[in-house]
């Protein structure tokens, strides 16, 4: 999409309607974004992938059974993107309002009042968990292997490892953006526990905050070839009075591949508008 000379004020919702194969480079979301004339937008390749079940007309059959690995576990591998923009706008959408501690409520109000200006991704530092998975225009790829499940984010070319080789958490974790994740299977559900977060990332774009005490439990369940649900529970007694959850649907983004999306160092920072 190319808008020669156009400077407009757009909200995220308008980006989400542009269609499945077009995205705006370096979109900053939620906060109002002034769109300058920019280069043509990259397009995801149409890449018919092997091992994709197909309907009679050759299209990917998204309701075919989920694939399984050699050891019989569901195989979560694939390129995925969130089915709805609702959770990017409010990760607490399922619970109405997050059970804030008072200090966290104040931080959230301040961020929401500023239209999310100041969030880390503005400065090209990572989106958090689950924020990095919530952007429909930025798919992610799961590569599942016996000892580790890797999540490759298109956005910023970052990755996350979920260790499934039986290790526990390290005795000490340095505070980090993506935390330290271990996973185990409960039936057909991959249950991922993550600790070791810093307190800088935001749970969503408006800015649900968390502390270093955050523990995230994600339950990944691939319902069929084209659909996956992730129930995410946030347990952070410093920021919230009790654990709370969101159940987020994801769609397979079939016959395509991630494209490189490097955040080029505050290139867009000057276009951010907020209070």
């Amino acid at each position, binding site marked *: 999409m190319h808008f020669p000379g156009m400077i407009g004020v757009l909200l995220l919702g308008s980006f989400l309607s542009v269609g499945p194969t077009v995205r705006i480079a370096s979109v900053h979301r939620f906060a109002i974004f002034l769109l300058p004339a920019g280069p043509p937008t990259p397009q995801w*390749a149409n890449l018919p992938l092997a091992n994709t079940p197909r309907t009679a007309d050759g299209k990917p059959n998204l309701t075919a059974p989920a694939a399984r690995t050699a050891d019989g576990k569901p195989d979560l591998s694939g390129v995925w993107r969130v089915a709805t923009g609702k959770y990017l706008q409010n990760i607490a959408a399922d619970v109405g309002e997050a059970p804030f501690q008072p200090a966290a409520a104040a931080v959230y109000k301040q961020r929401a009042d500023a239209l999310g200006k100041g969030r880390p991704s503005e400065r090209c530092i990572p989106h958090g968990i689950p924020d990095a998975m919530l952007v429909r225009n930025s798919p992610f790829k799961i590569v599942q292997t016996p000892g580790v499940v890797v999540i490759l984010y298109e956005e910023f070319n970052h990755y996350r490892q979920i260790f499934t080789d039986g290790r526990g958490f390290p005795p000490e974790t340095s505070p980090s953006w993506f935390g330290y994740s271990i996973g185990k299977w409960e039936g057909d559900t991959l249950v991922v526990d993550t600790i070791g977060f810093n307190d800088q990332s935001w749970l969503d774009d408006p800015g649900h905050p968390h502390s270093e005490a955050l523990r995230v439990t994600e339950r990944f369940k691939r319902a069929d070839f084209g659909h996956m649900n992730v129930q995410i529970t946030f347990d952070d007694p410093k920021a919230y009075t009790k654990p709370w959850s969101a159940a987020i649907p994801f769609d397979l983004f079939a016959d395509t591949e991630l494209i490189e999306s490097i955040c080029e160092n505050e290139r867009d920072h000057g276009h951010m508008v907020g209070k």
Partner: protein
Amino acid sequence: MNSIAAAIAILLTQWVDVPLPNTPRTPDGKPNLTAPAPKTPDGRPDLTGIWRNPDGRYLNNVAVDGVQVPFQPWAAALYKERQENFSKDRPSGRCLPHGVPDAMLVPATPFKIIQTPPVTLILFENQGRYRQVFTDGRGLPGDAQPTWLGYSIGKWDGDSFVVDTIGFNDQTYLDDGGHPHSDAYHAVERFRRHDFGHMDMEITIDDPKAYTKPWSVTIHFVLFPDNELMESVCENEQDAKHMVGK
């Protein structure tokens, strides 16, 4: 990262000790780095593991082993300029990606190979970025967008994993010293794991706009056993103010 910053990072960084299963060990329990290389179920060498070039020999000059680099005149001039200003403008100073092979040359930041049938991942500790090498039979795209890390496909040639990469922008440096390349850069990397603890990569740099003929160097990597990558996010010009140059 220049060599001084790398040295600081070595001092500051503490990797965890994670005794990994499937690691061959000597009687005293230490990883046996000269045990045979592991194989995948289909009989290929398995490159999976955490690797680094421990002495940093190639970081500042990938041609350090005596290769006569066949510069085109403009590339020679640009390299001279970068040498004279200590590469102060290199992209990593602004938290932009290291290139190929530069991202694999920093001893303080290892990389992890995860080999699966359809794709081999290279996870860089440095800046927390990744490369995918597709082995599902796809070809190179006809209209690859210019990118920092390129578009890579791999195939096996005997026990060597041969990776073809195109689609680079002209921004990355081949090494921290600043060997340049153009957007015509085509990299061919031949990875060969000799035993459990040792892997070589011969890289051929084919870029007729920047060099008069293809040239090659071989880089030696050593397994970094019983360990795990750490998160290393480049925080936006945090270090730019510390860069020294002319």
